[in-house]
Every structure is written in structure tokens, then in C-alpha cells.
């Protein structure tokens, strides 16, 4: 913490008498997060997923367990030996789903990050300044959202080639309109509050007003839509891999697993059930964490 | 003679439980209101005035607030024992309430006329047209032209909105009305109009009324009796004359001293030193002791008992154990 922040804290402590539980903003948020059971569960799961993603190459032997083919053990039902059963090429689904975390989590989070980093500033500026700029931005967003995301996938892949990075770029671009529109709506509701007026009166520059006053107050809808966007991205990746545009085989990205298991659905629902569950758990964890973060940071909700 | 009490509150205790910390908002409160009389409930913010009012309608928001104990009789029915359905009938019909900030007390997306009509339809078996007609009458009663019934709250000024709130509250002419600082948010000229109207309506409907305020001027103008609250308890209660002219409790004296004296311009204001006690851990003894000039060790030891000076006037102050004790203010008034 910067020096003057510490001093401000000491002053607070003295003013409210030793008893008061003075804490820095970050510690305050962490303190409140720890209280929220849901957020903690979410955080633990997310950390677990990240660890799994980072160390997957250490834990699993790529060539044998992930890429190896053994058609004799094709489509075995879930058993002790293969908790999730085996896929169409006799490879253990449990190992592939765990290994797939690396791809799906990266795709989901990075693509959503790209959309957010581009969409939120534009959306905020559009909502805040309004007028001609807002119109132009909104019309561009209408155009972008008119293009079906599968077409966007085909183009990015045929222009840049099919690899994970291009898939992430494609999914990132596709996610921009929705987040931008939502940010603008949130900023509009906050824009004409009195505290923005008063921030302007004390002479803050427009940019600072947006960053320090407007955005923090529309944090709630933004966080909610970002965590949901991760799920949408991972599932869109499955539609893209169904078109052969997803992560090239044999990498077991969850979307690819979903589309691979699609034909055997009637008798081997496990092939799509477990990747689906994996997606849900990831998104649920992100959601719980996102909610916990939002509630902790939202002064209104402090009792 | 048994007076006909519209509202009887007996040793009411209300607590708020927030993240483990327990706030004692109101402790052992007793209050009785007769039909046609107005009791002023006075005290600084945070003394528990609003909580008492909400408890009277069992409107204390359940999490985090809970009514620990106490009997509350509205026109003879103990609302603590009523079922949810019966409670709906009591509210608005036997007892109703006006709130402080007119800006936020009205539903912004419904016309003023609708909001009054809803109150009527809830309790009286009238069809919509007759209920609408009655609503227009109520509007005129509170001084708003019936032509504006179709307009929305944001098209009214603060004063006019408060009149609408009053119209809603009195639509089914309840026997008991609780007004929680009805005029605080209004400027002075409007304040006077609203108070006059309330007095006229009170007499017309012979209503019992509790007026919650921290403005002693208003109390003097409209109230018959006065109850002074401090840190969740009534420290002094009596008729207007008894409390204003024969003040007993040091806190009440402090309130009067912090008022500017129009006659004597040079008189120095004597604000009460210190701050309200932290409601999450009230002291064992008298809550006012730390700020009281006359405080003795005895005061801090135990809760002060109520000393009665007449059948309507008492003050909870240990100092009166010694009958000769007088506070400054009452010395020259004797």
C-alpha cells in the first residue's frame, strides 16, 4: 500500500478509537469475501481449475493418454477403470476432460477478456458521452452482432488458419457487441446520478469521472455478464469444433468433446454429459466468485 | 375512568442482528395513545423512534430486525398474535403511517389517484368507480385539485407529495396514525400548511396520533403529550405543560438548552456534550450518564427507575432518589 494510504488509515483508526476495525479497501473486500460461503467455494474451484490447467502436462502423459488410439476399448461405459467411460477412439474420457481444462479455461477466459477489454471502455464512453459518438458505436455493434458467429469463425480461421489463438480472437470479437451494449445501459443509469454531477462540480476530468465514479458503480451488471460470457464462449467453441473450426484434434477441448460425442448420444450420453458438467462447474465457480466479488465491492449492500 | 386507548405498547424490545452484532434499538418501551390525543415522540436520530413506529404496524424488516418481546394492542387487538391475513386488515384500516421523505414514499410508476384507490379497495368492499370517487374526495380533503388525480408523483412538489401520502394513509379513516417526521423534508412555509391540515383531519376523524420529530417547536404546536426517547428508552413522559414547564429529566433539559432563545439573543447555546452511545453495547446504568451534568456513581450502577411526579408525568432518573433534587431548568420555573 502506498505510504499516504497507510497514513490515512492511521488517522481513521485514531479518529474512531482503537476499537474500530480499520482496513484498507483491498483487505476490506477480502474480509467480506471470506464471509460469503458461495464466493469461497467458487474461488477454491477456480484455483483448482487453474492448477489443473497449468500442471496438466506434468500430470498426464500427452501422447499415451490423450492422443493414443485403442479402438478395441471403444465406447466403454463408465466404470472404476474409466470413471467417465471411453470415447469413440477408446481413449479415457476422464483424463481427457481433466486435460481439456487447459484449453477450455484459456479459451473461455481469454476470449471473454478480449471482449471485455474492448467492449467495456467503448460501451462506457458511448453511454457517458451519448450523442453522435454513441450512435456510431451502437450502429457498429448492431452490424457486428448481425454477423452469425459461425461465419466469423470461418473467416478468422480461413484468413489466419485454424489454431487456438485464432479461435480465441474469433470468439473474442463475437462477444464484443453484447458486453458493449450492456455496459452502455449500465452507464446510462448511473450517468445522471447526483454524485456524478458533484464529481464534475469539484473539477474532475471526464476521464477520471468515468474511471473512478461511473464504472465502479456499474460493476454489478458487468461482472455478472462477464462470468456468463465465459460459458457462452466455451459452448460456442463446441459449435465451432462441430464445423471443424475449433481447436484442432486431438486436443480434448470440452467443446470438441461435446461435438465428438454428439452422434453416440442415444446410448453413450456420458460422452457429452461429463464435458457439459465440466463446463457448468467452471462457469458456476466463476459466477459464484464474480457475485462474491460484486457483493463485497458494492457499498450499497454493506449492512 | 377507563380511557379508550387506540394504541397500547407494553415493554416493547426490538433488536437488529447484523453480522453477529446485536443492536438494541428499543428496550422495555411503554406507550399509550388515546383516541383524539397526539403524543409527541422526541429524541435525537438513532434513539429508536422509527423502530417503535414500525413495530406498531409489525413492519420491522424481519431479517435483520426482531421484536424480542412486548404486547402491542391496536384498538384492543394484540397484533403480535394476529395471522398475516388479519394483519393486512389492521394495517391501513385501524392504524396507518406517514413517512419522512415524500420523494421516495410514493410509487413512481403509478398515478396518484391509483395509489389512493388501492388503499380504499384493500379495505372497503367498493368497486373501482366508487373507490376512485372516494379517492378524489380524499385528494380534495388534503388540498389537491381532483383534476390532478391522473398525474404521476414526479409531477408534484415535495409538499404536494406529502399531502398525497397523508391522503393515502387516511383513505380508510384509521383510528390511529403514526407520523414519522412528516414535515422534516419540507421547507418551513409548507411545513405549517401540512401541520394545520393534519390537526384539522385529526380532530375531524377523532384519531389518536403519534408524531415523531426532533423539532420541539412542532411538538409544542400540535401535541397533547410528549415522550422523550434516548438510546431506545423513554426517559421522560408527561403532558405538554408538564414536560415543557416542569422538565424533570436532565436530557430533556439539554434538548431545551440547545434551542436558540429568540427573546434573549445573547444567551449562549449549551449543546449537550459528547455523542449518542453505541447501540451495540449500551452501558449497564443510565445511558445518558456519560453526558449528564448531574451524573453520580449511582446513575452508572443500575438502570434508573421511573419516578412519578403526577399520574401522567414521570422521569427515569436515579437522581430523584433524593426527593429534593432539582435540575437547573426547573429551579427558576418552580
Amino acid at each position, binding site marked *: 500500500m502506498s505510504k499516504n494510504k497507510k497514513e490515512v488509515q492511521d488517522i481513521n483508526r485514531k479518529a474512531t478509537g482503537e476499537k474500530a476495525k480499520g482496513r484498507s479497501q483491498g483487505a476490506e473486500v477480502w474480509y467480506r469475501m471470506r464471509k460469503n460461503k*458461495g464466493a469461497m467455494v467458487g474461488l477454491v474451484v477456480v484455483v483448482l481449475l487453474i492448477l489443473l490447467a497449468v500442471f496438466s502436462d506434468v500430470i498426464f502423459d500427452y501422447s499415451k493418454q490423450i492422443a493414443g488410439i485403442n479402438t478395441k476399448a471403444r465406447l466403454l461405459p463408465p466404470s472404476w477403470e474409466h470413471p467417465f467411460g471411453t470415447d469413440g477412439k477408446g481413449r479415457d474420457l476422464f483424463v481427457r476432460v481433466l486435460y481439456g481444462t487447459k484449453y477450455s479455461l484459456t479459451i473461455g477466459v481469454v476470449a471473454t477478456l478480449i471482449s471485455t477489454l474492448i467492449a467495456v471502455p467503448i460501451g462506457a464512453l458511448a453511454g457517458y458521452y451519448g450523442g453522435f459518438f454513441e450512435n456510431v458505436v451502437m*450502429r*457498429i455493434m*448492431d*452490424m457486428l452482432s*448481425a*454477423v*452469425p458467429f*459461425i*461465419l*466469423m469463425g*470461418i*473467416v478468422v480461421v*480461413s*484468413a489466419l488458419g485454424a489454431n487456438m489463438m485464432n479461435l480465441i480472437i474469433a470468439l473474442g470479437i463475437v462477444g464484443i457487441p453484447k458486453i458493449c451494449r450492456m455496459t452502455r445501459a449500465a452507464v446510462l443509469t448511473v450517468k445522471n446520478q447526483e454524485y456524478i454531477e458533484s464529481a464534475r462540480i469539484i473539477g474532475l476530468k471526464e476521464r477520471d469521472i468515468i474511471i473512478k465514479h461511473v464504472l465502479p458503480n456499474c460493476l454489478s*451488471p458487468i461482472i455478472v455478464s462477464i462470468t*456468463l460470457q465465459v*460459458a457462452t464462449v466455451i*459452448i460456442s467453441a*463446441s*459449435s465451432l469444433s462441430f*464445423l471443424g473450426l475449433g481447436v484442432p484434434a486431438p486436443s480434448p477441448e470440452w467443446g470438441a468433446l*461435446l461435438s465428438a460425442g454428439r452422434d453416440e*448420444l*442415444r446410448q453413450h*450420453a456420458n460422452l*457429452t*454429459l461429463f464435458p*457439459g*458438467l465440466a463446463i*457448468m462447474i467452471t*462457469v*458456476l465457480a466463476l*459466477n*459464484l466468485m464474480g*457475485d462474491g466479488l460484486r457483493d463485497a465491492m458494492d457499498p450499497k449492500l454493506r449492512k | 375512568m377507563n380511557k379508550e386507548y387506540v394504541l397500547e405498547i407494553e415493554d416493547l424490545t426490538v433488536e437488529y442482528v447484523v453480522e453477529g452484532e446485536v443492536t438494541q434499538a428499543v428496550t422495555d418501551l411503554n406507550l399509550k395513545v388515546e383516541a383524539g390525543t397526539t403524543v409527541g415522540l422526541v429524541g435525537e436520530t438513532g434513539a429508536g423512534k422509527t423502530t417503535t413506529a414500525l413495530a406498531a*404496524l409489525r*413492519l420491522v424488516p424481519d431479517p435483520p430486525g426482531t421484536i424480542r418481546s412486548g404486547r402491542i394492542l391496536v384498538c384492543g387487538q394484540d397484533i403480535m398474535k394476529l395471522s*398475516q391475513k388479519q*394483519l*393486512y*386488515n389492521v*394495517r391501513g384500516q385501524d392504524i*396507518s403511517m406517514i*413517512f419522512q*421523505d415524500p420523494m*421516495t*414514499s*410514493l*410509487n*413512481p*410508476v403509478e398515478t396518484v389517484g391509483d395509489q389512493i384507490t*388501492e*388503499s380504499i379497495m*384493500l379495505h372497503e368492499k367498493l368497486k373501482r368507480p366508487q373507490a376512485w370517487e372516494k379517492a378524489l374526495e380524499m385528494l380534495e380533503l388534503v388540498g389537491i385539485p381532483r383534476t390532478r388525480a391522473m398525474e*404521476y408523483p*414526479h*409531477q408534484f412538489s415535495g409538499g404536494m407529495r406529502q399531502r398525497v*401520502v397523508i391522503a*393515502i394513509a387516511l383513505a380508510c379513516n384509521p383510528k390511529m396514525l403514526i407520523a414519522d417526521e412528516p414535515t422534516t423534508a419540507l421547507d418551513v412555509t409548507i411545513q405549517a400548511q401540512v401541520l394545520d391540515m393534519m390537526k384539522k383531519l385529526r380532530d375531524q376523524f377523532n384519531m389518536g396520533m403519534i408524531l415523531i420529530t426532533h423539532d420541539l417547536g412542532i411538538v409544542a404546536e400540535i401535541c397533547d403529550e410528549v415522550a422523550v426517547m434516548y438510546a431506545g428508552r423513554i426517559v421522560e413522559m408527561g403532558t405538554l405543560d408538564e414536560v415543557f414547564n416542569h422538565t424533570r429529566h436532565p436530557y430533556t433539559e439539554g434538548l431545551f438548552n440547545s434551542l436558540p432563545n429568540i427573546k434573549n439573543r445573547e444567551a449562549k447555546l449549551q449543546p449537550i456534550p459528547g455523542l449518542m452511545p453505541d447501540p451495540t453495547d449500551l452501558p449497564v446504568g443510565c445511558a445518558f450518564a456519560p453526558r449528564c451534568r448531574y451524573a453520580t456513581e449511582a446513575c452508572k450502577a443500575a438502570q434508573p427507575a421511573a419516578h412519578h411526579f403526577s399520574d401522567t408525568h414521570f422521569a427515569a432518573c436515579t437522581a430523584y432518589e433524593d426527593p429534593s433534587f432539582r435540575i437547573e431548568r426547573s429551579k427558576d420555573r418552580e
Partner: protein
Amino acid sequence: MHKYILKRILMLIPVIFGVSLLVFCIMNVASGDVTAVMGAEELDAQQLYELKESLGLNDPLLVRYVKYMWNLITKGDLGTGYISKEPVMSLFLNRFPNTLKLALGSTLVCVILSIPLGIYSAVHHGSIADNVAMVGALLGLSIPNFWLGLVLIVIFALRLGWLPSEGAVGFKSIILPAITIGTGFMASMTRVTRSSMLDVIRSDYLRTARAKGAPERQVIYKHALKNALIPIITSIGETFATALGGAVVTEAVFSWPGVGRLIIDSIRSRDTMVVVGCIIMKTIVISVILLIVDILYAFVDPRIKSHYARARKAKIDE
């Protein structure tokens, strides 16, 4: 109000220009062209060149775009599909009612499920029920459509035989696809309902309503909900617009002849005329719907309506 509507409609024109140019460029960048799908296996290079010439594929992009837009503006003609030679307008129009029906059905399913759930979890904010409701809503988003679609078919069409498993004939055929798509949108609509209700649930006028003796149901569903409607209507409008975009996967599972599948099949066969034509029509329809949603705001929130009235009155006074 009319000035606002006119402005919004006028703004459609640059959007259509933008969208058509964007899609034209995209289809041009996309690999290959429609001849690869015409089974022209036995043609040699020369015949293939003549075939492309006959479809005008050899002209540079700009020429094709100008020709296309010229037809669109002067004759309102969206051209014909390269393969089917059917006018794109009729291709779109005879599939659009199905997509409209399905979009309405799925939005209705979503509204019926999400709004009560959103309100319930707002009223019980922070309780276990609140979290369970959120997980339930999330389930809809995480289950892929084809998985849910097939499970519904196996249960309701095959085992019980109550509902048809394919086609768009008759009312019963809408139920299963609408549920499949509707549950997918639940997650976001429930969240929006919950957060907008949370903003409203602590306002004073609810206390006034309760003081009137209004039962809790009426306080929540009438007073609170009506004030929380704006974000919810936005969410409904957005859900409907997305549903109109056509849930390709569900349309494939239920063999639902919607616009979504037409666009995807045309993209895969690089039939640019159909792709551009359908996307333009789709954009127009969605923009109109989003406009209707904005107008709806005024009816729900009088403050917005009076904002227009005041603007109009001010103009008259000038």
C-alpha cells in the same frame, strides 16, 4: 415520439449498408466459393472457370457489391441463390414465420421460468434458495442445446409419444424446441431480474404499500416488479432478438425449417447471395423489434414518457 421513431428507422440504412458490405467482404475472405459444392468433380479447369464466370464470381469484390446494392436499392431485389436459383426474398419469407414462432415460444418459456425465479431469489437474497435458483438458471446455459433437445425427444416423442419430434406443423411441434432454446436464455434473464429487483426491493414506497395493508404478493409482484421492469424488458427484447437470430443447433435437432439453418447451410456452401440477403432481412427485423422494446419503456415508466411529452411541448412553445 414520432421524431424518435423516424430517427431510429433512418439509422437502419447505414446499418444495412455496413452489414451488407461487411458480410460481402467476409464471404470473399472465406475460403473457396460455391462451385466447390456443386459437385463439379468432373469439370476440368476451363469448364470450372466458365461456371464461375456464369455466376459472376470472377468479378472483383467491389463490382459484385455495387451490382448487388444497385439491385437492392433500385428494385428492392435481394437476388437469387447461386444453387437454388430461388429469389432470396421468398427463401427468407417462407422460413421466417417458423423462426418467428420459435423465437416467440422460446422467449415465452424463458420469461415464464426466469422472472418468477429471479424475483424469488431477489426476495430471498443471500439464502440457500437464492443460490440454488442461480445454479438452476445456470444449468440451462451450460447444457448444450443438442443434448437437451435429444433428451426431450427421447422422453416426450419416443417414449411417451405426446409431442412430435420434428417439423413445424401445428402448435404441438413448437413446445420441445421452445423449451430447449428457452432454458438456454434463462441464466441471463434470471440474473437481470434478480439484480433489478434487488435495486428496488428496499425502496420506501414498498414500505408505504405494506403500511396500506397490501399483501406481500401484491407488494412484490405489483409495486416492486413494475418499477424493476425496464432492465427486464431490455433483457426480454435482447433474448427475443437473439432467438430470432436462429438457434442453429436446435433447428437441426428438431428439423425446424428456420432462418438460422438456411443461413448456416448457405455459409457452408458459400452461397453469398442467400447469406447477405438473409442477414440484411434479419437485421431489419431485429432492429424493428429492439425499437419496439425501447418504445415499450415509455409505457412502463411514465418518467420517460413525460420526457418526450415535455420535449414535444417545449418545441411547441418555441
